């Protein structure tokens, strides 16, 4: 009995103490991560999360989704469909185009965009904020077309064997799907948020903006083994971009992401031409072209009875098939007799040529009973007042037709011009950034300087070499010449990686290295020319938004925040284009007691700018005088807290929302309570009211206690209360 009593009490004590013991351990499991130590000789595990340092992407999934092995056409397509289904607000899955009457007046249909041999159209994604909204494009078949959203086209895998060129766009897709709409996130687990965006964000000449890679032990700084320490693609370089900025970008742009243009060729390369593992069977070769059946449609003497792919003869190089300067006889890459297929062996003649540019088009495209009289080169070759109206050939393939019609039928604003002001195509390999022209030697395009500028930016992001396409080797009829030459689109060819069939261990880091380029192109797609101009002349850098120290807070009313702008910058005053974004925040108890919290979920409000007449101001870096614009932020004098603000300014030329300060940062201005605290009369009234209730009530109670030592009747008590109250009042 006594023993049992003892035991049970012990048990009771244990239960009583359990909660306390539990609470002892609670902060041990805290999610708080100390920022990495800023000293040399770190090991990766000193800095980053397990996932990040092991190249585990946060969306999980199998080796395929983790970019540890290549996607096939099937796994790529099903993944694209899955991602689109999971993110219906920003992504829409498509294959080819619906067709209809295209911009050239031709009737087309879905099947004309399907590969010759396997019969698949290129799968692609339309990506933009609220992709189900906007207008529907009947020809293309996509929703989410907005007049005010710039469009960008990103195309991979023109050439079947260049496998990294479709893996990289797939990483772009996964990145958008995972990070869109997320608040500021610690992508690498180092305890910092958005500390290392793509490129050299802080302008110190070092792409590793937060210096985490550089803090590693010297032997560990080249994680991708390319021989260069802490360059793009290494762990810790450009690893933590701003999710808010990415989200804003997706919301304000229409992205047409076509990871695998050449589905026919890719399947053939993977399944027939280069048996797995391709990096061993085809270390420096592979299938390049599409699968046009040249022996059937071409000019060989023998009909292709078995409908098998004829390795010696079939296929067209899609990146030589575009119409601009198509087949221009540069000698180096063009076939001797365009559009012919001769069975004889040899690198340069006939369709066995890996760069065969497709058949000659001998139709009379303009119905003037002449053929090929006005080649597509931007000039009126036959001086009939029409430009490029009867082409020699090109855009003959389902894949290039698809690009042609998607480009020419995407005209949301109905101005007759294609909406794609920026276009990007991934190729491999050579670690280059290429800009037009490709078709001419020793020539420069009218936008040469601007194209070089953006190319340099992307070369910095990737540590690749920026050069004019023709300086590598002249090409005719490539994607970028056509986009730039015919549609004025700033077009770049990224030659990524170091092999056609890169070893699968290298997929992830090469894709990561080239990820930022896609977002850069999306960003400049509003007006790449003007952006380059403004940045090349340092206009963007020298303009300035008032910092919190400079803002003068008036004693009453809204708070003016000024910007000093360069006269070369013609600001678009419409409030939805140029504005100060602001929000007032107040730390709550939990936030003030438990440290700072991110405010990203607090919505921003906008207020437009107006010109301050006759007031000039100093631009930065001693670059002279600019003009002043001001936004009056409507913060009342009774409000206090912290005012977050930043500006977004656009030009009349269409460049949208250059942000000050850059990289999704904002300024924080302390706002004190400025109004009078109240009136003496009003406060006296409330004071009297409270005093009557509280002190008067207390007086009544105390009085009751003093006088009432005996039981009193209810009535007597009431009269006591009344008496007391009367006395209180008379006091």
């Amino acid at each position, binding site marked *: 009995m006594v023993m049992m009593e003892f035991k049970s009490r012990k048990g009771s004590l244990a239960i009583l103490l359990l909660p306390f013991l539990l609470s002892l351990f609670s902060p041990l499991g805290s999610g708080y991560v100390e920022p990495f130590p800023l000293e040399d000789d770190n090991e990766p595990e000193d800095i980053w999360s397990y996932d990040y340092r092991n190249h585990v992407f946060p969306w999980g999934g199998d080796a395929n989704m983790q970019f540890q092995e290549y996607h096939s056409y099937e796994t790529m397509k099903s993944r694209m469909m899955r991602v689109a289904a999971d993110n219906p607000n920003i992504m829409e899955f498509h294959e080819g185009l619906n067709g209809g009457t295209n911009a050239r007046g031709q009737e087309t249909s879905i099947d004309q965009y399907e590969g010759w041999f396997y019969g698949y159209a290129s799968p692609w994604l339309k990506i933009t904020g609220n992709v189900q909204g906007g207008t529907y494009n009947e020809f293309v078949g996509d929703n989410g077309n907005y007049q005010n959203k710039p469009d960008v086209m990103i195309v991979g895998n023109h050439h079947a064997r260049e496998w990294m060129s479709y893996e990289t766009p797939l990483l772009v897709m996964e990145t958008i799907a995972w990070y869109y709409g997320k608040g500021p996130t610690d992508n690498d687990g180092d305890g910092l948020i958005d500390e290392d965006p793509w490129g050299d964000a802080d302008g110190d000449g070092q792409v590793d903006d937060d210096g985490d890679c550089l803090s590693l032990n010297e032997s560990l700084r080249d994680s991708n083994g390319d021989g260069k320490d802490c360059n793009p693609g290494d762990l810790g370089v450009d690893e933590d971009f701003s999710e808010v900025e990415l989200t804003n970008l997706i919301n304000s742009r229409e992205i047409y992401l076509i990871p695998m243009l050449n589905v026919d060729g890719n399947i053939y390369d993977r399944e027939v031409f280069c048996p797995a593992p391709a990096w061993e069977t085809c270390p420096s070769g592979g299938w390049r072209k599409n699968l046009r059946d040249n022996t059937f449609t071409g000019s060989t003497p023998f009909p292709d009875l078995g409908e098998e792919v004829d390795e010696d003869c079939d296929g067209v190089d899609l990146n030589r098939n575009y119409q601009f300067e198509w087949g221009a006889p540069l000698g180096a890459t063009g076939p001797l007799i365009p559009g012919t297929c001769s069975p004889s062996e040899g690198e340069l003649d006939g369709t066995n040529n890996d760069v065969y540019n497709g058949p000659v088009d001998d139709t009379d495209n303009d119905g003037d009973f002449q053929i090929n009289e006005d080649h597509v080169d931007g000039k009126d070759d036959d001086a009939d007042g029409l430009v490029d109206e009867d082409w020699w050939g090109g855009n003959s393939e389902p894949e290039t037709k698809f690009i042609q019609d998607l480009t020419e039928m995407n005209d949301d604003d109905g101005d007759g011009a294609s909406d794609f002001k920026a276009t990007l195509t991934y190729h491999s390999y050579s670690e280059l950034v290429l800009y037009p022209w490709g078709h001419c030697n020793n020539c420069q395009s009218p936008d040469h300087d601007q194209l070089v500028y953006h190319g340099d930016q992307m070369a910095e992001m990737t540590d690749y070499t920026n050069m004019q396409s023709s300086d590598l080797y002249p090409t005719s009829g490539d994607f970028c010449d056509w986009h730039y030459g015919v549609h004025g689109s700033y077009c770049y060819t990224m030659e990524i990686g170091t092999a056609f069939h890169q070893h699968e261990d290298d997929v992830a880091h090469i894709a990561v290295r080239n990820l930022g380029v896609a977002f850069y192109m999306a960003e400049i797609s509003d007006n790449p020319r003007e952006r380059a101009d403004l940045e090349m002349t340092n206009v963007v850098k020298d303009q300035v938004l008032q910092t919190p120290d400079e803002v003068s807070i008036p004693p009453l009313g809204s708070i003016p925040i000024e910007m000093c702008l360069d006269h070369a910058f013609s600001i678009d005053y419409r409030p939805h284009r140029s504005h100060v974004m602001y929000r007032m925040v107040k730390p709550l108890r939990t936030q003030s007691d438990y440290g700072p919290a991110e405010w990203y979920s607090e919505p921003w409000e906008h207020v437009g700018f107006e010109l301050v007449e006759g007031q000039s101001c100093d631009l930065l870096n001693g670059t002279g005088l600019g003009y002043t614009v001001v936004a009056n932020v409507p913060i009342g004098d009774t409000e206090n807290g912290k005012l977050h603000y930043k500006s977004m300014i656009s030009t009349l030329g269409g460049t949208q929302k250059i942000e000050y300060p850059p990289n999704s940062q904002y300024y924080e201005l302390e706002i004190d309570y400025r109004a009078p605290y109240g009136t003496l009369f009003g406060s006296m009234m409330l004071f009297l009211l*409270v005093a009557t209730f509280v002190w008067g009530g207390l007086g009544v109670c105390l009085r009751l206690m003093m006088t009432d030592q005996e039981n*009193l009747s209810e009535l007597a008590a009431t009269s006591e209360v009344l008496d007391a109250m009367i006395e209180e009042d008379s006091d």
Partner: protein
Amino acid sequence: MSDQFSGRMGLIFAAIGAAIGTGNIWRFPRMVGANEGGTFLIPWLFFLFAWSIPLVIAEFALGKRSRTGTIGTFRIFAGKRFAWMGLWTAWISTAIGFYYAVVSGWCLKYFQLGFSNGLVGESVDTQLVWNEFLKSPGTVIFFQFLVVAITLLAIWKGAKAIEKVNVILMISLFALLFMSLGLSLWMDMSDGRLDGFLFMFTVEWSSLSEPSIWINGLSQSAWSCSAGMGMAITYAVYMRKDEDTTLNAFTMGLANNSISIIAGLTVLSAIFAVSSDPLETVTGGSSAITFLALPEVFAQAPGGAVGAWVMMTGFFLALSFAALTSMISTVELCVRNFVDHGFEREKSVLFTSISIFIFGLPSAFLWISIAPDGTAFPQFLEVQDHIWGYGLMFSGLFIAYTIWMYGFKKWRSEVEAGTAPGGFSGYLGVGVSAFRDDFINTGDNDIWIGRWWDILMYAAFPVLFSVLIISYFGDMIANTPNVWDPGNPHGITIILLFWGVVAGGFIALNKKLIQRPLYRNIPEGADADISMLPGGSDDLVSDTNEKLLVAIIED
């Protein structure tokens, strides 16, 4: 020999002492600042009458009849199966006491610093003083020990001693506060504008529709009056039979609010007189601001070094007194429960005090971190506060539940006896008002409690509780990063886990608990027959006087 307060004033002083704590002196001014000044006074005053006082009335009535601490009260009134609710209530108060002793130690230390002029002068950086203090575990523990020792001495002998100590402490507190108030009003007035006064008594009518102001008003009122904490139950144990519980409740609540107004006006006037951005000082800072901002304010008191010394010493002494009286009631609440279950008072006091000291140690020195603004803060202590502070909400609900249970049982038994009508209307007529009829309006009360009290207990209470808890969690989910991460000490998962484990453990313990005999503390002349109470069928419940007999049988 049983404990009893000698007079009404003794009890009142003790209860006021329990209710007045650092909550009135620091928390209230901060809440006024964070909730639009005078606007806050309206919900705060409203909930004094709609929440705190009715709840304290209920607690007093419960304790006065059960004549036991929280565990016994729930065992007797809610039924055997619900004794764990009393254990929960007691645990929450005691767990808060673990770290409250540390905080009280800070107050004492600052009194000592003020007394020895350690907070005044050109060279004094209040942040540095605070950080150095917090980071020297020896000093923190010494003052924590001092608090526990003083509490132990005060409480050793029971109600009579508590009474004497409290009267001295409370009167000193009032005097010190009034002195501080005079000084700060004078300081505020020196620039010709009573900014602090204007701020504290100006209503921003448009803000009155903001729910957060009402929620904060409710929580401030309840916490500063100790409504729902079981304090009033404990103190009612020492009441005479004919004690007027309702008048006591009103007095206690109104006295508490009176002190809040004085303290609020003192602190706000001082800050508005001195700070360049008073609103930011009042609203933006963390709880450490008492020890950072106020010394700076007091250092600028008129009269030079003497004025500063008087202000500093007076204020922190008052704060220490307020903290000590609350500490006393915390220990007493725990001790009462031990005594109820047959333990000797002296041993219980010793055990409780030592436990509070030992379990408070981690809060004193574990995980002292530095906030981004450079201020040191005790993270472990704040985690404790986070987890147990909000557990109080349930204690209040349990008390209301007890009253519902009593009403329901009473009505059922009367229906069976044929003296009450069945059906819902019968329940409304007899059951709902049963507790009020039987235990509140006993005839000893000067203030007759009407039907409004039933409405508050049965309708308003659950609604307000739901609003409170939903807004609390909603706020938490909206404002805490990684709120569902169980490793996040400020997240939801951890708080639910702790509550769950504690409640689960206590429910499991319930069986053992009700097998123990329970001794009721019935002072002479206060015969409260157990047969009148719902727990009357419990053979193990007996009066203190019968203790000897039972003990013999047990052996």
